[in-house]
């Protein structure tokens, strides 16, 4: 199951941005996420899903990309 919905909920909870205002394919940076906000978001994601993301994941720019990485890490954890 895709983590996208849960990530959208997290974005709303943490940054007050509605899912409808952030297209999964849109650049998060262009929506105002600077590198620091992204780092903080990855930290929250790690806590929520019990996964560990790599430094390279902070280069991710869309929610869809982020969701794909999270899904892979969750699957690896379950395996």
């Amino acid at each position, binding site marked *: 199951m895709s983590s996208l919905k849960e990530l959208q909920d997290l974005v709303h909870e*943490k*940054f*007050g*941005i509605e899912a409808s205002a952030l297209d999964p394919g849109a650049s998060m940076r262009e929506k*105002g*996420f*600077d590198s*620091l*906000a992204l*780092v*903080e*978001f*990855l*930290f929250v994601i790690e*806590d929520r899903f019990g996964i560990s993301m790599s430094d390279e994941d902070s280069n991710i720019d869309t929610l869809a990309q982020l969701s794909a990485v999270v899904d892979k890490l969750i699957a690896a954890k379950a395996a």
Partner: protein
Amino acid sequence: MNQVAVTGLGVVSPHGDDAQAMFAALMRAESTVQPIFPELPKPAAAALAPFDESRWFTKLQLAGVDRVSQLAVAAADLAMRDAGLGPDAPSDIDPERIGVFAGCGMGGAAALETAYRGGRVPPLTIPAFMPNAPASHVAMRHRVQGPVLTYSVACASSAVAIAEAAKAIQRGDVDLAIAGGSEALIVPGVVLAWQAMQTLASFKPGEAATAIRPFASDRSGFCLGEGAAFLVLESTERARRRGARSYARLSGWGISSDATHLTKPDAPGQARALRAALRQADLQPRDVGYCNAHGTATRIGDVVEHDALAAVWGSELDRLRVSSTKALHGHLLGAAGALEAVITVLALHRRQLPPNAHADAVDPACQLNLVRAADDSAASGVDAAISNSFAFGGTNAVLLFSRG
């Protein structure tokens, strides 16, 4: 050499974020000191600044921004708006000729406390904590590309910052300075550390509001306060040219070092700063009608400040009206000098002197002509006023403001 005008005032203080309303509350001797952290072994009290960060930040913008920086951004923004330089105002100022001069004693205490308190350490703890973050956030908000400097000189931090900003305006290094400071360290760990230092006021249950009693026989120290205050400084010529309102001129400043003891204040050192400020403003002691005292209500500090004022004012000491407003807003440490500078400027501008509250019986060792609540007797003749800030570490800063 340029003269320095104060054209904007902004505060986020324990008495709220409207500088004029804050001053009015001080005139009514309203204390903001209240009990905090009931879980601590020893009773604690502090003055907290009511603050709604959503007025200045989206949730996204708050990533890695400690409260100390949030307060700074808000107070600086209010000061710029007050100076007629809000975000919508047309501006002809070269960003490279604007400076931010900010005082901060500790930095982001809440960020550090969170990191120490178990669990995973948030990745933005360092940028949130670093003491120059408030100045940088103010700079980013107003696109300031000139000097963006932080002064960490304990309780004199923001008074020193304002003096340094004034020098930059005087020399023509910058055309506009956003000068002040912020402090937000009311977290359990920091309160415990201050309690261990034995400088905080003791108080009976239900009496926190009157715990700080500057210059009183029964004084026992101060309570911590939090907040931020900024002044907009520019040359009197520039202020006149753009038709800006000038609250007062910053006509003198004196900075000295005791070089005697890390924490024990020293009257000769303080007197040197007082004399330097007078000398620069080309004024005599009798020309200064009001002193917003450092007045931390510690056993030793108030006596030493009295001695320093007495040494400089001599037989004119009784002409000088004195009050420590810390009784009402607590000790803002790195932001104290800036908040009290705003209060001093407003005292001159409004010709009203805020009272020295809670000193029913004045200590004979610090007999000063204290301003009492509802006493407006001498305010009308006050054309110049000083604000004292004396720091741990031995640095003394005196700011001297003049009407007109």
